[in-house]
């Protein structure tokens, strides 16, 4: 279980393929963040819609 890399800079450089490796891992991270935020917003909106519906009925 020894680490493959001799240094952090070697790790970040990814043998000259840093751009391609980090664009891939970064995109996955970004996608997860976007999904988490959109899930939170969707729940918030659904709860607001329940309130709206209840207020409408109270008015009638």
């Amino acid at each position, binding site marked *: *279980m*020894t*680490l*493959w*890399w001799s240094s952090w800079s070697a*790790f970040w450089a*990814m*043998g*000259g*393929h840093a751009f*391609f*490796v980090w*664009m*891939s*891992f970064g*995109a*996955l991270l970004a*996608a*997860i963040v976007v*999904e988490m935020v*959109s*899930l939170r917003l*969707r*729940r918030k909106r*659904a*709860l607001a*819609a*329940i*309130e709206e*519906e*209840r207020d409408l009925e109270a008015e009638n």
Partner: protein
Amino acid sequence: MNWFYFASPATFYGLAGRLAPWFFILAAVLAAWGLYLGLGVAPTDAQQGEVYRVIFIHVPTAWMSMFLYFVMACYCGLTLVFNTRLSAMMARAIAPTGAMFTFIALWTGSFWGRPTWGTYWVWDARLTSELVLLFLYFGYIALANAFEDPRRGDRAAALLALIGVVNLPIIYFSVQWWNTLHQGSSVSFKGTSMHVTMLTGMLVMSFSAWMYAIGATLVRVRAVILERERRAQWVRNLPEAA
């Protein structure tokens, strides 16, 4: 135990809320372990160099993109045959996460392909059928939301999802059926040709993706239940809706 107890949106809402955090915790622990193996410990690939490390997310997301479509199609089948409400809600909840994984599989494949094949994209059978999968997810989501009556949307979209299942074997076998630029599988049911650390890392990352997908689906299905049942008394009685 009554297995149909949780088939009602009202009871499943609570269960999903209690389960979801545990799946996210499992996903995070597995991701930490898998990334440690894949990015830290695994040796470099003799032919591809370090860029091969993209496979630690490319393969798990590609597997999940197909697996989630299959699970979604199963829920769609239940919806059409038994007209069950929760199954339709589950299918709707899976679709965006499935589309996300499909997009990431295409994206990471593209960034792996550029240094390895010399191109970001090629109209090869594997890549094209995976792109069709992304459009199937989009089509499902669009059709499900295209109707005034959500239950008509459920059924129309379910039919589309079931027809789209034919694309799954096309993706899976494309590397055998056609002469593709995409390589054949390194891992199959018959065994593997991979280094053991690479294989372990990839499998751990796959389990992480799976657990994440379950967590995200459970959280989303709760929102879908709230949207669809907003006039129901049990929803109005929820502490979070007060």
